[in-house]
C-alpha cells in the first residue's frame, strides 16, 4: 500500500535520472578531465581575458534586460491588475500573443526591424535624428531590445499575480488615513508586490543568462556564454572547457535561485515577527 505510492515517481525518474541528472554528472566529470591539472579548465575560465569578457558581457546583458523588463513589465502588470472582466482578458491575451510565437521568429522580427535598412533606421534618418543608420545588430543594443521584448511576459505574469493577491482594502485604508495615490503606492502596493518582483526578476535574469537563439542572431560581435559553450563543444571539440563553462552557468543559476529563496525565507520570518508584535 505504502510502497505503491512510490510507483508514481517511476515515470519521472525514468526521464530525469538518465536524461537530466546523468547529463549533469557527465558535465561535472568532463569539466575535470582537461589536459592541464584537474582544475585547469576552471583556471582558464577565471583567467582567460576572452572568456572573462564573454562572462561579463552575458552578465551585463542579463542585468540590463532584467531592469528594462521590470520597468516595462511592472506598469503593464499594475494596469492589468486593475482591469476587470473582458478588458483584463484582452490585455492578457495581447501580452501572451507574441509569447506564443517561437523565439527564433521573434528574434527574426527584430532582425528586420533593426536592420541597416529596416523601419527603425528609416524612421530615425527620415525624422533627421541621425545621419547614418545605427548598427543595432552589432552594438548589442538590438540584442537587449529583442531580449527585453521576449522576456517582458515572464516579468508581467508573476507581478500580476502578486498584485492581484493584495487585499484591495489595504490601499483604501491608506487613502482613508490621508495618503495620496502616489504614497498609497509607495507605502502599500509596492512593498507588498516586492516578493513577486523578486520572482519575476529571478526568472528573467536566469533565462537571460542562458539565452542562445537571440544572441546568435542579433548579438553580432558580442558573444554570450551559451554561444561560447556551443562553439567550444561543436566547433573546437574542447569538451572539458565547454563543460567547465556549463558548470559555471549551472552554479550561477543555482546561486540566483538560492538568493531568491533566502530573500523569501527572510521576508517570511520578518512577517512572522511583525505578526508576533501585533499579537
Amino acid at each position: 500500500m505504502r510502497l505503491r505510492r512510490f510507483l508514481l515517481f517511476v515515470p519521472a525518474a525514468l526521464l530525469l535520472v538518465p536524461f537530466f541528472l546523468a547529463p549533469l554528472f557527465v558535465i561535472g566529470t568532463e569539466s575535470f578531465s582537461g589536459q592541464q591539472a584537474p582544475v585547469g579548465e576552471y583556471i582558464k575560465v577565471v583567467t582567460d581575458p576572452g572568456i572573462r569578457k564573454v562572462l561579463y558581457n552575458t552578465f551585463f546583458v542579463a542585468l540590463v534586460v532584467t531592469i528594462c523588463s521590470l520597468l516595462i513589465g511592472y506598469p503593464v502588470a499594475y494596469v492589468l491588475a486593475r482591469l476587470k472582466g473582458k478588458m483584463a482578458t484582452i490585455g492578457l491575451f495581447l501580452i501572451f500573443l507574441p509569447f506564443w510565437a517561437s523565439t527564433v521568429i521573434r528574434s527574426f522580427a527584430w532582425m528586420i526591424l533593426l536592420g541597416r535598412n529596416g523601419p527603425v533606421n528609416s524612421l530615425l534618418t527620415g525624422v533627421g535624428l541621425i545621419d547614418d543608420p545605427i548598427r543595432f545588430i552589432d552594438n548589442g543594443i538590438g540584442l537587449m531590445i529583442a531580449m527585453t521584448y521576449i522576456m517582458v511576459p515572464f516579468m508581467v505574469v508573476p507581478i500580476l499575480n502578486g498584485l492581484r493577491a493584495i487585499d484591495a482594502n489595504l490601499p483604501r485604508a491608506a487613502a482613508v488615513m490621508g495618503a495620496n495615490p502616489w504614497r498609497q503606492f509607495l507605502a502599500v502596493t509596492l512593498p507588498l508586490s516586492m516578493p513577486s518582483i523578486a520572482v519575476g526578476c529571478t526568472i528573467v535574469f536566469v533565462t537571460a543568462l542562458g539565452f542562445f537563439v537571440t544572441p546568435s542572431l542579433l548579438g553580432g560581435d558580442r558573444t554570450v556564454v551559451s554561444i561560447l559553450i556551443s562553439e567550444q563543444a561543436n566547433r573546437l571539440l574542447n569538451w572539458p572547457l565547454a563543460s567547465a563553462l556549463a558548470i559555471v552557468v549551472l552554479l550561477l543559476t543555482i546561486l540566483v535561485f538560492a538568493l531568491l529563496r533566502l530573500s523569501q525565507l527572510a521576508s517570511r520570518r520578518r512577517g512572522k515577527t511583525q505578526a508576533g508584535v501585533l499579537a
Partner: protein
Amino acid sequence: MIGEKQLWSAWSRFLGSFVGAVLIGFLVPILVVVAVSFQSKSYLSFPPTDFSIRWYEQFLGNDDYRNAILNSIMIGGAAAALATIAGICTALAVVRAEVPARTIVSILSIAPAVLPQIVLAIGLFPISVWLGLQGTLGAVILAHAVVGLPFPFITVCGALSSYSNRMEIASMTLGANAFQTFRHITFPMIRAAVIAGFIFAFAASLDELVLALFLSSPSTRTLPLLLWEQLNFQVTPEIAAAATVILLVTSVLIVAATLLPRLGKGD
C-alpha cells in the same frame, strides 16, 4: 485651476495609455514579419512596395520545411505526451500521496525549465552517443520530454491543490478503489490542467533550439533549427512566409486550447 483630483486621474489615464501603447507595440514585430512575407523582391525591404505570394509558393514546395515541420510535430507530440504522463504521476505523488522527499522531487521536476538548455545539451550529447540515440528522433524526444516535464507538473499540481483531497476520500468511501477514483473523479477534475500542461510542453518543444542543435541530424532537423540555420545563412522573405504560416497555426492551436476547456465547462 486644475484640482488635485483631476491631476491624479490625468496621471492614471497617462499610465493606462502607456500600457495600452506597450501592448499594441508588442504586436508590431509580429505584424512586420507578416507584412514583409507578401513582397516579391528577393531581399527584405520595409515597408513592402508590392504584393505577391511567390514566397508562400516557394515555401510550400520546399521539402526541407515539410520535413522539419513533420519532425517538429512528431517530436513535440511524443515529448509532450511523455512529459504529461510523468508530470501527472509526479504531481499526484507530491500533492496527494504524502510521499517523503516531496520538496526535492518538486525542485527536480521544475529545474529543467530554468536550467539553461546549453548546459543540458552539453551533458546529453555524450549520453545520447553512448546510448546510440544520437541523431535520431528519440534523442530529441527524450530531451524535450525532460524540458517539457515542468509544465504539466506545475499545472496539475495547481489543479490538485485547488480542491481538497476530500473528493478522493469521498469517492473511496463510496466504494471506488484508487484506479477507479482517478478515472472517474481525479482525472475529470484536472483534465483542463492536463490539456494546458500538454500544450505548454508541446509549445516548449516547438520553440526549443539548443537541444535540437546538439542532438539531431539533418534528417531529424526541427523547424526552429531549420529557421535558425537559414537565418544564419541569409535573411529572405521565404523565411518570413514560413514564419507567418507557423504563427498562424500556433495562434489557432492556442486559441483552441484556451477555448476548449471553457466550452467543456459550459455544458
